[in-house]
């Protein structure tokens, strides 16, 4: 088959010329460029410097398809399915018919107990639960016509994280890291904070394991596994690693041509640095008093948000902050008030903070859960205990920063907020748009596996141009 053979040749040639660089020339490069190892960005050295200098290290920073608007992503994953009807999507008709039965939806209509009003110059309508965040209304974009496939938590969460509700597929964080590489100095490229993001939701699946999300621990104990040796002091360990390096140099004489041996020597030095760098990124107390006041450090979500900003600042590509407890089948009003209170404070602080650090313009902020909730009451819930059931037909997500059109609400659901009816946006479309903001054509960011090219959006996905700045 002509094209295939052609492709094979191209690849062969390419790989030959890319691995031409021998160890000597790599060393040469370091010397000539006047950079000691320490002078290069640690990111370049974090994993396997010699390969990286050949330009093909899996975590080397890479160019996107076109100039990206966003360089990094933070996704506050509201796990459980937050009610769009009480946060994002004002439904006066629903309020008007509150308490009336609805045949098709098999239940009693439940108008939001929260008031909506327009904010900012744009007049973006948001619920009163966004007391602090609404200050940033003109930076916010709400997609009110989201939909997904399945109203079950695990399936919908996987859809949001990986683009497939059931099968093992790489998470979008893995795709982005695969596409852009890492700029993190001595931190993982793709970080998960909070509980619930482990496993399939941050899996690299068939992408190389190096793109897997790493769960870091904001709250207590060690930031990540194996970061601390309880049996040896830091200076002693440094001393031990120095001896190790000398032994390895001895061994290198036996195999002077093996670049990877040198890379492994380097990996120990970087590991040593990582031991202090990772906890340092989580040393929230080192922030200014002003910043600390903005976030509520007693609140775990707020702490995660602040930690996330510090991580992003240090070059981490993707941070997913998981916040559980948004599954309000019962007692919606009280519980939403508490949940949204903490989210509102954290998010307002984060947006302010990103702006103040000049990072908002190239940081894509996503606030999204796996689905929304029904306009009717949860069957059997009454009075103060009233809640809402799962709803995948229509829900909202909120975006800001990184090339997003601020002060804009996109699409809509029907009068009661049950189904997306106008300019529907499927999760696949959200993914396509996220990749676009990061500089990728979602149809071209592919990985060849099992005989075909895979994409985050698989065979779906449409760029939602209206929400671009």
């Amino acid at each position, binding site marked *: 088959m002509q094209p295939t053979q052609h492709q094979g040749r191209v690849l062969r040639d390419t790989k030959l010329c890319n*691995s031409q660089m021998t160890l000597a020339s790599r060393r040469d490069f370091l010397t000539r460029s006047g950079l000691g190892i320490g002078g290069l960005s640690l990111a370049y050295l974090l994993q396997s410097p010699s*390969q990286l200098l050949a330009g093909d290290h899996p975590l080397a920073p890479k160019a996107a398809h076109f100039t990206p608007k966003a360089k990094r992503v933070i996704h506050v994953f509201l796990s459980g399915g937050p009610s769009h009807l009480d946060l994002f999507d004002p439904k006066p008709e629903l309020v008007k018919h509150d308490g009336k039965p609805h045949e098709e939806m098999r239940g009693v209509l439940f108008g939001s107990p929260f008031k909506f009003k327009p904010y900012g110059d744009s007049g973006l309508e948001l619920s009163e639960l966004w007391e602090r965040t609404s200050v940033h209304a003109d930076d916010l974009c709400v997609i009110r016509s989201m939909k997904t496939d399945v109203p079950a938590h695990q399936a919908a969460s996987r859809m949001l994280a990986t683009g497939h509700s059931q*099968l093992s597929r790489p998470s979008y964080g893995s795709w982005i890291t695969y596409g852009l590489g890492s700029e993190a100095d001595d931190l993982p490229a793709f970080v998960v904070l909070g509980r619930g993001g482990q496993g399939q939701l941050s899996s690299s699946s068939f992408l190389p394991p190096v793109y897997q999300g790493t*769960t870091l621990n904001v709250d207590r104990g060690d930031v990540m596994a194996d970061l601390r040796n309880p049996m*040896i002091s830091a200076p002693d360990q440094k*001393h031990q690693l120095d001896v190790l390096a000398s032994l390895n140099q001895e061994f290198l004489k036996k195999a002077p041509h093996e670049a990877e041996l040198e890379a492994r020597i380097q990996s*120990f030095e970087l590991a040593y640095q990582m031991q202090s760098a990772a906890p340092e990124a989580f040393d929230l107390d080192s922030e200014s008093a002003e910043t600390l006041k903005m976030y509520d450090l007693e609140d775990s979500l707020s702490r995660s948000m602040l930690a996330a900003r510090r991580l992003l600042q240090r070059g981490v590509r993707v941070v997913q902050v998981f916040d559980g407890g948004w599954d309000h089948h019962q007692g919606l009003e009280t519980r939403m008030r508490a949940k949204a209170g903490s989210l509102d404070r954290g998010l307002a602080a984060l947006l302010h903070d990103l702006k103040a650090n000049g990072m908002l313009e190239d940081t894509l902020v996503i606030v999204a859960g796996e689905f929304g909730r029904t306009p009717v009451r949860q069957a059997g819930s009454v009075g103060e205990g009233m809640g809402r059931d799962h709803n995948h037909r229509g829900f909202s997500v909120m975006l800001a920063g990184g090339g997003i059109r601020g002060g804009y609400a996109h699409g809509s659901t029907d009068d009661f907020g049950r189904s997306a009816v106008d300019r529907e946006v499927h999760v696949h479309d959200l993914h396509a748009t996220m990749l676009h903001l990061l500089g990728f054509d979602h149809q071209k960011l592919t990985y060849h596996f099992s*005989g075909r090219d895979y994409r985050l959006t698989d065979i779906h996905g449409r760029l939602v141009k209206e929400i671009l700045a």
Partner: protein
Amino acid sequence: MNLNKTFITLLRNCGILGFALTCDTVLHAQEPSPKPDTPSANASPEDVEFFEAEVLPLLQKKCYSCHSHDAGKSKGGLVVDSQTGLLTGGESGAAIDPGKADSSLLIRAIRWDDNEVSPMPPEEQLSAAEVEIFTRWINRGAVDSRQPTAAIAPMQEIQEQAKTHWSFQPLQKPAVPAANQVTKSNNALDRFIGEKLAAQQLLFAPQADAATLIRRAYFDLVGLPPSVDDVKRFEKAFDENPEKAMQELVDQLLESPQYGERWARHWMDVARYSDVSGGLRNQGRDDRLPFAFTYRDYLIRAFNSDKPYNRFVMEQIAADQLSLDDKRDLAATGFLAIGSVAGTEEERIAERIDTVMQTFQGLTVGCARCHDHKFDPIPTEDYYALRGVIASTTELGTGPRAERVDHELCPIIEECSDPELRKAYEEDVAKAEKELRDYEDKVWLPKEEKWRKETPQYLDVLAMTQKERGGLSATDYARSRLDRSVLGAWSQLLQRAGRRFDPILEPWIAFSRLPAERFEEQFQRTLGKLNDGAKQPNAELLKTIVDSQPKSMRDVAKVYSDYFAKADAAWQAELSKETDKTPKELSDPTLEAFRKILYQPGMPPARAENKVRDAFGNNDRKRSDLVKKLQDAKFHHPGAPIRALSVADSDTIADSPVFVRGEPDQATKERVPRRFVAILAGAQPQPFKNGSGRLDWAEAMVDPSNPLTARVIVNRVWQYHFGKPLVGSTGDFGLQTPQPVQAPLLDWLAVTFMEDGWSIKQLHRRIMLSQVWQQSSTEHPTFATAMDKDPENTLLWRQNVRRMEFEPLRDSILAVTGNLDKTIAGRSVPLYSDANVNRRTVYALVDRTNIPTVMSTFDVPNPNLTQGERFVSTVSPQALFLMNNSFVLNNVRKLARSEEFKSLPEDSSRIQWLYRRILQRDASSHETELLSRLLPVPKNEPAVIDPREAELAAQIQAADEAYQANPDNKAAKRRLEQLRKAEKALLVAKERKQKQAKERARGVSEPADGWEKIIQTILMSNEFVYVL
């Protein structure tokens, strides 16, 4: 080295790097730039917008199903999924004429008013607005922003190309090249390699030294290091007769039981081994695979016994249909059953087909599920020919729907031999069963009774709502305040009776169809129909209904309710009679029929699994725990019988229809006979004859004329001896994979492999006794030149330097620290979560839904998908594991504190001992000196003394002297006594402080001493983890 392979794979897979081209881009690169007259060349954003928002969705919704590549259809020769498709058109010519809607065929077709053109879409006319959209679009130039799809060669063309594709060519044994200046070896492998080297004017590297060879051999075959004595013995034998020494070494290692463990683990990558089935459908359920280990143990036995590979293939696909010498080999079909059950049923089936075909044939058949394979000669029918086989196969005990996965369906292959354990197992099961039943009964029995008593209410609600025949609406449920699942069960029972005649329920069905307002009017007519029907309803019941002169369906329901009450009362009376035997039924046939509806399992008020679950909800933690406890006792208990994770033919065996675009609701009428893929089965593929067809399928793969099977496996084996395969993509030998440089060698190996009786062990011998395998990886007479000419070492001018994978690394740490538990086989152990488990890594409990970080850190492949190659990355978290992980620290400490180690003199000879133990060689004086730096400096200075203590001592001495000089001086005596008291107080304080310090230290890990640091340093060294 490995790394190169890794990055080649990466490059190939990358669609993002400028130089790594996807097939599409290559195609476009060859094509001239877009013709200037194509309408989209200067499209305005508005036109693009209009196309994407309005036109494209219409095309997709209304036209693609018959006219697109994705659908695999081009009716009338027309595809509309690209601009080219529209412009080129089909049999009737171009579909569109940009700028001229009226003359465009497309418009004429969708207007449905043109006699010369078939109306489209044929089933349903487009709305006027939709036609208008197309009209406007074409008139405005038919701007089309779609990426031109790669020109997909039609299947015929691909099949034509496949005829000359290297991997499909029949296997023929190539002539072994003559000896040349590069090699005088008599080994055929060396001649093939030597020929290519000579052509490039390259030389072999010299043979590696004996110590390197034995370490390499151990790593390749058993994944553990040799002992220093092994090395010494081998060096001696090697000095005397290298050839004989090598032969004996390889034979000895192939006989070692650790060989099977090492090679089973390689196969487990391909077989996506996991101890958890995983998948959403099992959410909240017990999805552990307690007998996954029987498949792993099968693999270990198979490799150790050098099971001929053709038999190995057959057993993994169809062991249940073969006569087996060892019953335990039934677990071979675990290869199929161990796969993930995530996704839909069709996705599960696709996974099985794809894994079988990639593993054994190097073909990616899964692509053909939705359309003809885009690159390989696999038409959609081929996929569905195999789908029939898998769909006719049942994976025992992994059934996704049941709340409790019933592993009892898996056949027992081994009973526990320890009678006491067996007894304990039986007792535990009985106890767990009783506990669960008791707990359920407490909640359940009163409910069941209540539901039976409430039968009149249920019937009444049904009588009011059943007329629409569509079942119950939510409001009906809401209104009724009755139990949702019981009401649903009643409703379903009646719906079922509506489809299948039931003498008791038939009158209900008939009368319930009458409209409420005309019930009385039409009653007689329905009665007449009932009496005249072919099947007679229960006469007594019908008479009672008629006699009651019902005015509505609710009146009919009352008659039924009375019967149910009567039947229940009669039954209770029967039960309370004091007789020896429990009653089986009522004597009155009518009442018995009613009783059955109340009491038979599956009937509305009776116990059924889903009702039990509803009754308890998913949140009943106590019950979930009891369910899990029962599963634990039945299947995870050490005294439980061992069952084979396996498959069997289903009760119904059927050919499969083709699902258009892979969608099960779009099945074709015709079915594809179960058979092998056409490209390998020849022009007239024979349908499979035996049961599901798995046996035939396996036979087709191991047929000596199959060109792929032997090529694929020798390539896999080769990869584990050189760090990279001869054919880069071990699971894809299709048209996208060019012929490898060493093609003749591959063919020679494949043919010889079959001649050797498909013996894997013989293949190891052939490879390891060759010059090419034994050559040095680090020394070469013209290293720089060779590196320049062939940096990837494709031509194999040296052996590759390889880094141990995670499994041999972890196993080696256990081995050299003296802590390895060499127990073979058995249930999986949680060694990823428990740092104190000392079994080999192959026995790890693997949960594919929760992959431990250390697995991905060390590039262990994701067990959700079949993976034939491992990535090799060098990342800092790997270093952190060796620096800080408690597994490493524990084992280091155990060695440092072992009697053996402590009995050694405490000097540099210990370092020698460690070097021999860990690296199987003597340490150089430089290395000894380096490591000695980690020992604490010997302290020669006097012990530190509290200055107050010294001062006090001096004062006491002075006072004592004064007192001695003048014993009558009372003041001097008093002073001495005071000073002595102070001394004592100081001592007490000192002891108290020491005690406090000790207490503080408790709970904190004891710091590592110098020897531990030394041991750990050697374990972290490159020399320990690289195999030269």
